[in-house]
C-alpha cells in the first residue's frame, strides 16, 4: 500500500468544481443541487467522533445551566456557602465537612451531600463545579463573540481597503501578536480590575471575557484579512463595484457571506482557547475574582490550598475543564474537516 492514504494525485486543483465556494475547490464530482453547507453537514454527521464530542459539550453546557436547580433542589447548598465546621449524615454515619485538622472531605458519591467532596472552606465542590462551569462557559462565549466580531470586522476592513488602513491595522495586530497571550492577558486584566472602564472593573466576570476577547483578535484578523485580499479580486466583487454598490454593501453582502465557512471554523477554536485562557489568567490572579466560582478559580484554589491534602479539589475542576475544552476542540476539528477539507489555517494556541 502507499504510505499515505487519502486523495490520489489525479485531480489538480481547479480542474473541476470551479463554480463552488472557495473552500470547496477541487472537491471532485459534486452531485448537482447539493449546497456547500448541506454537504458539510452531511460530512460532519458522518464523523462519529466529532458528533459524539459535540454532544458531550452540549451536555456539559446544559448541566451547567441547570446549576441553580441542583444547588437548591438536590444539594440544598449555595455555591459560595462555606460550612467548615458543619457535619452531615452519610449512610447513617455522621461526617465532618472538614476534618479535625482542616482537611476537606473527598467525594462522597452521594448526590445530596458533597457529591464531589468539599473545598478547604467547606463549600460543595459539585455545586461550585456547575456554577463555575457557567462562569467559564459564559466567559468563553462572550470572549469568542468579541474576538469574532472585532477580528472579522477589522480583517474585512483591512483586506478590503488595503493601503494605510491595512498597514495600521496590521501593525496593531502585530503588537498584540508579539505579546505572549498570557502576559498580555494579565496586563490588561490587572489594569481593568483596578482602574476599570465603565462597568468593567473589579470582580465583574465580564472583565476577563473582554480581556480574552481582545487577546485573540489577531488569530482571526490575519486569516480573514488574507481571504478578503483574494476575494476582493474576484469577478463578483468587480461586478458589484461596477454596479455602483457602496463599499458597505459590497463588504456585507458580497464578501462576508464568502467568509462564513472560515468564520464558523474559528468559533470552536477560539472558544476552546478562551476557556483555557480564563483558567490561566485566573490562576495568575488576573481573571475571575473570588468568591465567584469558575473552573479556573477552583483549580487555582485547589493548587494553592489542597496539594497534597485534598487533591480532588484540583483534579475534579481540572478534568472537567479538560473534557469541556477537548470536546470543543475535537468537534471543531471535525467541523473544519467538514467545511474545508483542504484547509491550511493557522490555529490559535
Amino acid at each position, binding site marked *: *500500500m*502507499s504510505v499515505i*492514504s487519502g*486523495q*490520489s494525485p*489525479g485531480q489538480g486543483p481547479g480542474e473541476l468544481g470551479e463554480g463552488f465556494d472557495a473552500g470547496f475547490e477541487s472537491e471532485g*464530482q459534486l*452531485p*448537482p443541487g447539493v449546497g456547500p453547507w448541506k454537504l458539510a453537514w452531511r460530512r460532519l454527521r458522518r464523523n462519529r467522533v466529532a458528533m459524539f464530542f459535540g454532544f458531550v459539550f452540549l451536555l456539559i453546557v446544559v448541566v451547567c445551566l441547570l446549576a441553580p436547580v441542583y444547588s437548591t433542589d438536590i444539594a440544598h447548598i449555595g455555591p459560595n456557602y462555606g460550612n467548615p465546621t458543619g457535619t452531615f449524615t452519610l449512610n447513617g454515619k455522621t461526617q465532618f465537612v472538614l476534618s479535625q485538622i482542616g482537611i476537606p472531605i473527598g467525594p462522597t458519591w452521594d448526590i445530596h451531600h458533597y457529591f464531589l467532596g468539599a473545598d478547604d472552606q467547606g463549600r460543595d465542590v459539585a455545586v461550585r463545579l456547575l456554577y463555575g462551569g457557567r462562569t467559564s462557559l459564559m466567559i468563553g462565549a462572550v470572549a469568542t463573540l468579541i474576538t469574532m466580531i472585532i477580528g472579522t470586522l477589522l480583517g474585512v476592513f483591512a483586506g478590503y481597503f488595503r493601503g494605510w488602513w491595512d498597514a495600521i491595522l496590521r501593525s496593531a495586530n502585530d503588537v498584540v501578536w508579539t505579546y505572549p497571550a498570557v502576559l498580555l492577558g494579565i496586563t490588561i486584566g490587572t489594569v481593568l480590575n483596578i482602574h476599570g472602564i465603565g462597568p468593567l472593573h473589579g470582580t465583574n466576570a465580564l472583565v476577563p471575557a473582554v480581556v480574552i476577547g481582545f487577546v485573540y483578535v489577531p488569530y482571526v484578523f490575519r486569516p480573514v484579512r488574507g481571504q478578503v485580499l483574494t476575494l476582493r479580486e474576484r469577478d463578483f466583487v468587480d461586478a458589484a463595484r461596477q454596479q455602483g454598490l457602496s463599499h458597505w454593501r459590497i463588504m456585507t453582502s458580497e464578501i462576508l457571506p464568502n467568509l462564513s465557512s472560515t468564520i464558523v471554523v474559528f468559533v470552536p477554536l477560539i472558544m476552546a482557547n478562551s476557556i483555557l485562557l480564563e483558567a490561566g489568567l485566573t490562576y495568575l490572579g488576573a481573571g475571575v475574582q473570588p468568591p465567584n466560582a469558575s473552573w479556573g478559580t477552583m483549580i487555582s484554589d485547589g493548587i494553592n490550598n489542597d496539594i497534597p491534602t485534598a487533591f480532588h479539589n484540583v483534579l475534579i475542576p481540572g478534568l472537567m475543564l479538560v473534557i469541556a475544552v477537548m470536546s470543543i476542540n475535537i468537534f471543531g476539528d471535525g467541523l473544519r474537516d467538514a467545511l474545508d477539507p483542504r484547509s491550511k489555517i493557522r490555529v490559535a494556541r
Partner: protein
Amino acid sequence: MSATEPPLLEISDLRVAFATEDGTVQAVDGVSFTVSRGEVVAIVGESGSGKSVTAMTLMGLPRGSNATFQGTATFDGTELVGASDEQLRRIRGAGIAMVFQDPMSSLDPVYRIGDQIVEQIRAHERKISKAQALDRAVTLMERVGIPRAAERLRSYPHEFSGGMRQRVMIAMALSCSPKLLIADEPTTALDVTIQAQILEELRKLRDETDAGVILVTHDLGVVADIADRVIVMYAGRVVEQGVLDDIFYDPQHPYTWGLLGSITRIDSDRSQRLPAIPGMPPSLLSPPKGCHFRPRCPHAFEKCVEVPPLEGHVANRPESLDRCWLTEDRKRALRQVDGQVGLRSTEPVIS
C-alpha cells in the same frame, strides 16, 4: 509493428473506480489499447474524460485507498495492475517514465535541479557515484536543449521558466532510458512557441530511441504534429481509435467530429481551447445509460440507450475502432457541416 513481437504495453479492459462520499466515480470504464516500441500513441479527450487516471494507473500512482482497479495492463511482460509496491517502484522511472502537465509545480522547490535528476538515477542504479550521476544529468540536460547545463545544474526550480522546467522534467524522465514515456499534457501549461519546442524534443526522442510514447492531450493540433496513432476518450471510455490520418480524414465517432470541428474552426490559433461541442461531459458518478455521449449527441436515436461496443466498422481497416451505433453511410453523411468535418450544432438532446 512487426507481427510476431508482442506490443510493449497491452492494456485490456482497464477499469478504475474511486469511492467518494457521493458514490462511485467510474473514471476509467473498460479501456483497451496497445503501444508498441517506437510508437507515439496520443490519447485525446476533454478534461475529465479519464486520460490522466489511465496514464497514472500504469505507474501505479492513483493508489489512494479509495481507488479500485480491474483489468490488465501488461508492460514488457510484467503485469502492472495489482503489482506490488516494490515491483512498481522498480518500473517507475526506469521502465516507464512520466512527464506531468504542470512543470511549475512538478519539481520539488527545495532541491537543486541537478540533485533532483541525480535522485532519480540513483533510485535505480544504486552503484553509480554521485559525480557520475551528475555528469549524466549534464548530458541529459544538454540533450533536451538546456543551455549552460553544467552551470544550471546548481539552480533551483524557481529560477527556471516553465518551458525550461518542462525540459528538466523530460531530462529526468529520460535519465534511466525508459522503454515507455508517458507525457500527460506536457505542453498545456506552456505558451505556443515553447509548446512547439517541447514537442520537437519529444519527436527527437522518438526518433533517437526505440521508446514507446503515450502522449495525453486535449489538443488535436499537438496530436497532428507527432502521433502515429490516436485514441479518443470520452467519459471514461475509448470512443474511437485509429491511425492518425484515419482519425483526421475519416473520423467515425460524432465526438471525434466535434473535436475536429473545433480545431478547423480556430485553425490559425491552436492555442485556443474553446469547447466546440455544446454541453458538458457527464458526471462520472451517474453517467447516462448507453452511449455516454448521448446527451450531447445531435444524432442520437433509440438504439443509443444501449452501450455501443468498440468495434471495427470500416472495411479493410481493422485497426480503426469506434463506439457508435450509426452506420458507416450515415456517419459519412452526418459529419459534413459547412463542407467540413464537424458536429452539427442543433440543440443537444437532453435525456
